[in-house]
């Protein structure tokens, strides 16, 4: 059948797309461009919506702001602390779940629970776990003779507390995806590698890992983007504060603070543009590096 590229066909197509498009444009696409535009507002009347001057002042002020630089640093520390550890632990647990063990489905569901539970509830529970006097974690540490740690009060420990919580929270999803990847690897490759004299570690590094590399790549991209956007965990864990002495002030927390507390829309928009560019750059770098280690069939 010949398909005509006429105006009529175009309009019919648009009608089909319209419902989804309207929602997408209103809540996603318009705000993105609006934020980009707002980040260049230099002089602006918020009440009457009049822009007097456009410029780069917001960006300049941003990089002069020590808190922003701190937020950048904290976010990078957080991402480096969470993403690799989460992926490595996920691969390990997924491999165990993929082997012949009892109660496999039960374990699978237990690991997946954090993903379907709300961040707020999780952070509330962890606040109790981290409690310096009554917390479960300090209790266990006391059993092996370690003095109580002021997890949420000591600025030296607060970031570590946040990272531990976030690793735990991301495990469920990562394990599920990696497990699916592992289940798609035909048992015969593993058998062939055994025949070829490869021991367990070599079978994993030389056969299994390359075969699930597209899955690992996917998980690393999504975890990385997710981690750069960390906010809810901080907000609840430290009771609407960015941690003691701003020790857990992250990029998105900074944006939230500028927008919802200080009403500095221009700065908030500029910060979100910077965050966007950082995520874009790192994702692009990942794609370039991935050509060397990801094997697509």
């Amino acid at each position, binding site marked *: 059948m010949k398909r005509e590229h006429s105006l009529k066909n175009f309009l019919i197509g648009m009608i089909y797309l319209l419902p989804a498009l309207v929602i997408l444009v209103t809540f996603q696409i318009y705000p993105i461009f609006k934020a980009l535009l707002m980040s260049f507002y230099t002089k602006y009347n918020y009440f009457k919506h009049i822009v007097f001057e456009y410029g780069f002042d917001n960006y300049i002020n941003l990089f002069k702001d020590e808190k922003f630089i701190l937020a950048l640093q904290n976010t990078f520390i957080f991402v480096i602390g969470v993403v690799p550890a989460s992926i490595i632990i996920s691969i390990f647990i997924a491999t165990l779940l993929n082997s012949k063990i009892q109660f496999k489905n039960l374990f699978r569901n237990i690991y997946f629970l954090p993903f379907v539970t709300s961040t707020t509830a999780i952070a509330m529970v962890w606040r109790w776990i981290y409690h310096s006097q009554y917390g479960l974690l300090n209790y266990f540490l006391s059993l092996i003779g370690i003095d109580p740690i002021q997890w949420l009060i000591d600025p030296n420990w607060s970031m570590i507390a946040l990272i531990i919580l976030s690793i735990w929270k991301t495990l469920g999803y990562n394990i599920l995806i990696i497990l699916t990847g592992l289940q798609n690897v*035909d048992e015969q490759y593993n*058998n*062939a*590698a055994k*025949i*070829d*004299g*490869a021991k367990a570690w070599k079978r994993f590094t030389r056969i299994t890992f390359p*075969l699930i590399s597209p899955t690992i790549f996917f998980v690393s991209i999504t975890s990385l983007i997710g981690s750069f956007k960390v906010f809810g965990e901080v907000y609840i864990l430290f009771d609407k504060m960015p941690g003691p002495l701003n020790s857990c002030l992250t990029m998105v927390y900074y944006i939230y603070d500028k927008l919802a507390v200080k009403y500095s829309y221009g700065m908030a928009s500029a910060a979100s543009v910077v965050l966007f560019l950082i995520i874009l750059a790192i994702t692009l770098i990942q794609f370039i590096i991935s050509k060397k280690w990801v*094997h697509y069939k």
Partner: protein
Amino acid sequence: MNIKIENISKNFKNIKAVDDLSVEINDGELVTFLGPSGCGKSTTLFILAGLYTQDHGNIFFGNVKVNDLETEKRNIGMVFQNYALYPHMTVLKNILFPLEMQKIPKKDSLAKANELLELLKIRELQDRKPNQLSGGQQQRVAIARALIKSPQVLLMDEPLSNLDAKLRVETREEIKKLQQHLGITTIFVTHDQDEAASISDRILIMNNGKLQQFDKPRQIYNNPNNLFTAKFMGNTPINIFSLRKNLNGFSITDTSITLPEIPILRDLGEPEFLIGIRPEHFEICTVEDGILVGIVELVEMQGKDNLITFSIGNLKCRCFSSPKLSPKTNDKIGLKIKSESILAFNKNTGDKLSIKM
């Protein structure tokens, strides 16, 4: 290296996959495990490879008991049904992988790989990935990978089942030549009795996890141990009749058809038994001369002979005839039996009854 399998059993849940199997395979021999699907032949192969562990019994490679030896350390080569070439490696890397695992210097392993690339005529494929190869080419690469570490034993799990008919015949000839050239003890699993007969030094026939017969192909064909083996070997099915002794001859059970006295069958102890007659052991003659009379149903050309399907009462039988005296559909034909080639089996157990000549 010779292999000894001693009272091997393996159960999967409630299914007896292998049931008390004992076999000895000589050094340099090519043995085929033959049987219908689910008979336990592949399970036995996987037990030999160490990929499955037997529930009972012992396995010896030479004088070494390998029961507890891991697959990695058994020094075997194996060709899988779907070849199992590593999809992320080139042909050359696939072939080099086993040597790499033994940490053999690159120079030595490359020399070895080159030798095999030549031998299997796959040199021009060395930089391709497995998904760029045809089934036959993947097959060769899989064989090269299995052979590169000079294994003591080569195991092949239905290696030809994914190839088309013509390629299958060519490849089995090449495998046979290669095996003789290298003198490597080889175990070959197949469900195709033609393939088994053409390639093997000896065939091990299995059914329901049990050994049925282990002998040379010709011997199994001419002298099957039991009814199952008799039916399984032979391209054109053997004709089976159930006979009952009469006063002066035999009658075919549940029919009014009678046979004249056949002295060699008279001595069998049983009053009722089964006989098997291969299609080539019938001889077509005139209705008057025949000891049986049949009505031709179908005439098919099969190579130099015609295959005649005919009915005796409501029994369907097959025999070969030369095209010269070719009967037509619905013709009445007489049949003679070469009595020295009749096989007899116990009606209940299917075991062979020995006929004294």
